[in-house]
């Protein structure tokens, strides 16, 4: 479990203080799929950076399986458990050959050679990039690079996977592949997934959707209950999936439509209406 207790984070800029997180408490339980949403500057990315000790709390604590991120000696263990993926893959790729980049993490963990080979193949297979193992990363497209970055983290076999807008540079198939990969890792391998996104349609797979605003957690619910709160979400700058919006509009016109999350679901309901 990752326990976030009374976490406050203040960025000091010249002579200004910016409160990015304001007394946040939240537990991330093992095996869950949690999605964080909220407008730019609401504190989502700052919170993500706390989950593997990239930054330390101004006040409060973050504990990963009981290991506080504010204790220097814990950081190695914390980062082995918590893998992190960012938006821009160019900042995350270090080696000149794809498979060497994927090997970088496990090599640093002292994983035996044969095991590393196995992990590289598994990780690249997971993101459908095995055929690019010998490629130079700079020859890949943005989306392909992002998948290599994800493979690099998977090769370290983390227990928790934190992703900060990992699909924002990917094409529809790339997005689907990443989302399918995350769901598979979560369902089949029980990996805990924490996803930060602006795409509401990616939140529909979560166990719990959490909305942040001004450095606070303001609302959390399972997806269907979450997207039922249209007015609140508008205030928070969170878009409803277009299909949910259409459902609302039809409901306003007097049709009996519950909160819907996908096109198939709405189509099913409409075809049965009479």
């Amino acid at each position: 479990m990752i326990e976030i207790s009374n976490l406050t984070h203040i960025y000091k800029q010249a002579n200004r203080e910016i409160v990015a997180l304001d007394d946040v408490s939240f537990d991330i339980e093992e095996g869950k799929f949690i999605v964080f949403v909220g407008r730019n500057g609401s504190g989502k990315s700052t919170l993500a950076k706390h989950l593997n000790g990239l930054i330390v709390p101004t006040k409060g604590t973050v504990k990963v399986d009981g290991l506080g991120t504010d204790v220097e000696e814990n950081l190695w263990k914390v980062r082995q458990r918590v893998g992190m993926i960012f938006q821009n893959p160019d900042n995350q790729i270090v080696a000149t050959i794809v498979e060497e980049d994927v090997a970088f993490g496990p090599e640093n963990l002292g994983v035996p050679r044969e095991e590393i080979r196995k992990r590289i193949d598994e990780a690249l297979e997971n993101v459908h990039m095995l055929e690019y193992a010998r490629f130079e990363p700079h020859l890949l497209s943005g989306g392909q690079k992002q998948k290599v970055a994800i493979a690099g983290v998977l090769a370290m076999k983390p227990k928790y996977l934190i992703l900060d807008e990992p699909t924002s540079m990917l094409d529809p198939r790339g997005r689907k592949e990443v989302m399918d990969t995350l769901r598979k890792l979560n369902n089949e391998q029980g990996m805990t997934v924490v996803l930060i996104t602006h795409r509401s349609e990616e939140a529909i797979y979560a166990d719990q959707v959490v909305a942040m605003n001004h450095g606070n957690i303001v609302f959390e619910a399972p997806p269907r209950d979450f997207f039922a709160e249209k007015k609140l979400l508008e205030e928070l700058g969170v878009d409803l999936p277009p299909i949910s919006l259409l459902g609302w509009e039809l409901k306003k016109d007097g049709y009996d439509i519950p909160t819907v999350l996908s096109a198939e679901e709405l189509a099913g309901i409409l075809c049965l209406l009479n």
Partner: protein
Amino acid sequence: MLIELKNVNFTYMPNTPLAQRALKNVNFSVEVGEFVGLIGPTGSGKSTFVQHLNGLLKPLEGEVLVEGKRMGEEISPFLVRRKVGLVFQFPENQLFEETVSRDVAFGLHNLGWAEDEIEKRVRSVLEMVGLDYCKFKDRSPFTLSGGEMRRVAIAGVLAMNPSCLILDEPASGLDSIGKREILANLERLNKENNLTIILISHDMDEISRLAGRLVVLNEGRIEFDGSPRKVFSLRDDLIKIGLDTPEFTSLLVALKKGGLDVPLDLFELNEVKDAIVSVLKRRGS
């Protein structure tokens, strides 16, 4: 014709074992005032393609014409880069000056413009991207929100007075408000200033509402070129190459399969809703 590509071929690292053909016999032209959406799966050659439009890359074979002049012979790539502004992904990473106005003015300073002319131009381009000159000119770009920073970066490109603006995923990473602002801005620049816009996007919903014409790249070839209605009617072909249709198209297709006779080529919430309501009413009566 503003820009034309004729039989363009391009290969990265030619004559090596790692040679990659990125553009294959591409023919394309864009006219003044068009709003073109460029879509294609990752690795399909979109970035390579747009870099040919503003002279950052030179075709291995074929030719590029800008305003009818052959690039490299009748018009220099340097001049083309001023006529065709390219806004890369995450352009805010390229901001570096201490104030917004200095950052926007950087290119003009390099061209040796007079101070008062620069000020006038900076004022007008900041307003073109919806940022109040007096409020923003002296602020550090690094204290702005993501959406504001991105608009400052776009203003810096607009300052060079391009006839065509190419943007690579300008809304990616922005929240819904920032996204709406940027896109509304582009729409206005196209309609009011008759600026030619070429927009790369992976968001089929967004591009279906903005672009008057869609160009689909796949494996370095132009696969389809036509109106969004026409292109998105090729749903199965798009899915096969790794793209998708807007969510509303998926819904309409599913409704049709379920026996509701709706048109498939609607992209706006209201028109979709009206079509559904009218077909439900017909069915009920």
